């Protein structure tokens, strides 16, 4: 069976809760190296997402694409097009059978979308630094089932997030700070970790 619409909606609800509860943390992180809007922006976007009625969508894939479009139109900051692209691509590639390898490919399509949109590479202190190792671990553990793969991904994602602390930002507002951006955790990598951790709680 597919990872059904309701599980995916549960994933979004869990993520929205995490974002809402940690909005101040995200905004504070963003204040250190950016424009202090990441928490508020993501919270606004995810609230609009949970206002969607999942039962009106024919499939999880369609729902995920709508999540992407909703974020594009409601987040406002750079996270809008970045997370928007992520969900649009994930939705487009979301499998209609439950197969961890295919889910891995869908998530990777999302990562590729983010890289393409933001022109970010690994090591530039962005959410790519969290998502990329997470998907590597997901793929490595996909053979042991969704649950194991997602748990491994969540652990790697958090490690990637923590590893952004010493990095010097090369993208976005933080890059204006140059060397001074080192020593701060990247807010985008932080929210991305919440997304993958939410997936490990809801999709396995």
């Amino acid at each position: 069976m597919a990872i059904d619409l309701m599980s995916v909606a549960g994933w979004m609800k869990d993520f929205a809760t995490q974002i809402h509860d940690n909005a101040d943390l995200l905004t504070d992180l963003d204040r250190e190296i950016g424009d202090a809007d990441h928490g508020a922006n993501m919270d606004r976007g995810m609230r609009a997402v949970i206002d969607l009625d999942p039962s009106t969508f024919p499939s999880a894939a369609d729902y995920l694409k709508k999540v992407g479009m909703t974020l594009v139109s409601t987040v406002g900051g750079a996270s809008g097009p970045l997370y928007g692209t992520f969900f649009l691509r994930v939705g487009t590639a979301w499998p209609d059978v439950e197969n961890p390898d295919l889910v891995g490919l869908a998530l990777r399509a999302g990562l590729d979308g983010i890289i393409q949109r933001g022109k970010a590479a690994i090591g530039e202190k962005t959410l790519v630094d969290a998502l990329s190792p997470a998907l590597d671990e997901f793929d490595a553990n996909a053979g042991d089932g969704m649950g194991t793969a997602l748990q491994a991904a969540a652990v790697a994602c958090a490690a990637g997030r923590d590893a952004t602390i010493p990095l010097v930002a090369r993208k976005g507002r933080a890059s204006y700070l140059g060397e001074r951006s080192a020593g701060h955790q990247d807010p985008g990598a932080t929210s991305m970790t919440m997304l993958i951790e939410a997936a490990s709680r809801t999709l396995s």
Partner: protein
Amino acid sequence: MIGIVVVSHSRSLGLAVSDLAAQMVPPEARPQMRVAAGLDETTFGTDAAAIAEAIMEADSGAGVLVLVDLGSAILSAEMALEFIDPELAARTKISSAPLVEGLIAAIVTASTSATLEEVCAEAVQGLAGKQDQLGDSPADSMATPAPTEGGLRFSWMIRNPHGLHARPAAALVSGLRGIDATIRISNTTLSKGPVSASSLTSIQTLGLRRGDLMEAEIIGPESEKAYSTLTDLAHSNFGESKDIEPSINATRLDHPRQDPMRTGHQIVIGEARYIAIDPDASEYIAGDVPTELARLNAAIDAVAQTLENLDKGSTLGIYGVQLLTLKDEFTLDELRSDIQGGLPAIEAVQDRFTSFAEQFEAIDDPYLRARAEDQRGIQRMLIRALLGSEVSPGLASGILIMPELDPITAGTLDPELCLGVITTSGGASGHGVLLAQSRGFPLLTGRADARTIPDGTLLAIDPVEGRLFIDPDDEELSTLKEEQSKRAAATAEAIRLAHKPAVTGSGTRIIVEANIASIQGAHDGLEAGAEGSGLVRTEVLFADWDHAPSVDEQAEVFIAIGKALNHQTITIRTWDPGGDKPLPFLPQDPEPNPMLGERGIRVMRRLPDLLDDQLAAILLASQETPVRVMFPMITSPKEMLWARSRLVDATRKVGGQIQAGMMVETPASALRARDFLDLADFISIGTNDLTQYTLAVDRGNSSVTEVAKGDRSAVWDLIAMAADAFKGRPVCVCGDIASDPESVARLIAAGVTELSVRAPLIGMIKQAVRAVPCAVQIRE
């Protein structure tokens, strides 16, 4: 009239700037304008969907200019282009113009019914007026470098074939020397650095390979000058402009005409002489700090003197690099501070250069890794100088055994005294080894077993077979001497007859040609006796171009090659990218299995324009010099039919008429060669790929070379099948088998009519042809 869309984080800013700009033109002349700004009246943000809608509304068929404020406005605008009709997206341009000034310039220009490009150009120039008035415009607005915190930033993709190795790195260091600016260089691709651009050693440890992104941060009073110097250096590929195989080419130029008998293939017999290349420093008695500093300076001067003398007699450039390595500011500072910290000069030299050498050895690139030898070469010379002995290891006689061969030793080897060299741990591609080989010294590298040979032992080296004879007995010795004189006689005979045709014992004429990858290679080929070329590797010929060469540029090179070969027929293979041969101007996504991926003609089917241009160039060249064309990686008649149809189209445009053939390099085309009889005027068998695809051995993987060298009966059968199908037409072999004298008879027996080989081997291959007796011709 084009339309204009304003994208801003703030709705009030977006509306206000539109009102301001609208004042500039009367209402009836205003272009369509839409504002996509803010998430609502008060919430800052941008919305890709709203931008997409605004673009659709603003377009009246002439295109849309999108002006953005910053940050996510750019991302959202780019995303909007994906939401709209691709045709509309194609006539929509997101401008980097400043929002206020750019919008005003855009509205005014658009109202004159200017094109999208014209409006865009004006908008981007929007700041010029203000800059002029306030006098803070960058000196050269055409080449405005991107500012970094108070400095400039320069980015460049390295396209030198061996990356930023010693010579180009040295060109960079010396080019920037004396400019009053602090320049720090990083390898962005590997996230290494930044390091100072004044340190050759540090730059080399960045491991900048071809395709890596180099970034320089420039700060200081003369940063503009440094920026433009760096730009010039980069555009000349740091002095390596069109040098396709820099080390090899330079080596060849260094000793242009030495005794052609000294091929480096000769058997030599002589006494072992162990060169203690690492001098014994235990006798060194350290003085106080000023003494040690003075000794270091004296040693550096002595070594510099030796290097300068060597450099004068050489165009190789290696000694210049060594000089820069020696005088590297970073290195010298480190040495001095070590000595000031109480370390004797000799220990400072030992520690520092050992650590540099280790850094090079840690680099994941065999070419740069071999540069560790340069570091150790300098270290040895400095230590010898500090010990008060001769800087160079001396002119020893006999067969020299040494741990490794550095360029200084290689350059000072005396052909009157030194018979050959055996290294016990060095690799086969160091500067020193290349240099000694080009100077005609027989070499064996990496022979650990030679370490224990006592001085004075009688040795013999057969460099062709890679064999070392230790203390050969009388019988072995006489066999060796016999072989030695036989080989010498054969070389002499091959040289004497190199320019004569090669005919077998039964009277079959075999064409022996050169494989060509550069214009210089064509000159060398003619000199070696080539009867034209059976393979011109276009992808190697233009491998260091950052843009696809134009029709005229290609034609010019092809004509130059034909001319260099005395207007004998050359066979031009169309672009064969992919696998292990990427082209910088032809980006390809990495493939998990490139050898089985998009290679050769498969790439051209995706990018037919590149093939069309090349065919036009080949046809143009054919009007000046005899040319054939052949297509690589053909597996089915459909592909060949497609390639020929492109050739027909090109012929219609350019004129000319040429023979068209194909590479047979897959089992598919060899097995079904008969299917191509109506499509190919000739075939050329690429035995390297044919072997790889038949025996399932990766040609670049040294752990399976033994399989490739083993039983090749299947490959031989395929060669015979292909040649048989094309009986009566030219059948060429251009792979490595053709360069193997032992295989020549069998190839001819199979029906091969042309052999295209490495230029230096032409004489020998012609001799191998002549040695083919009547008997093998019995076949028909």
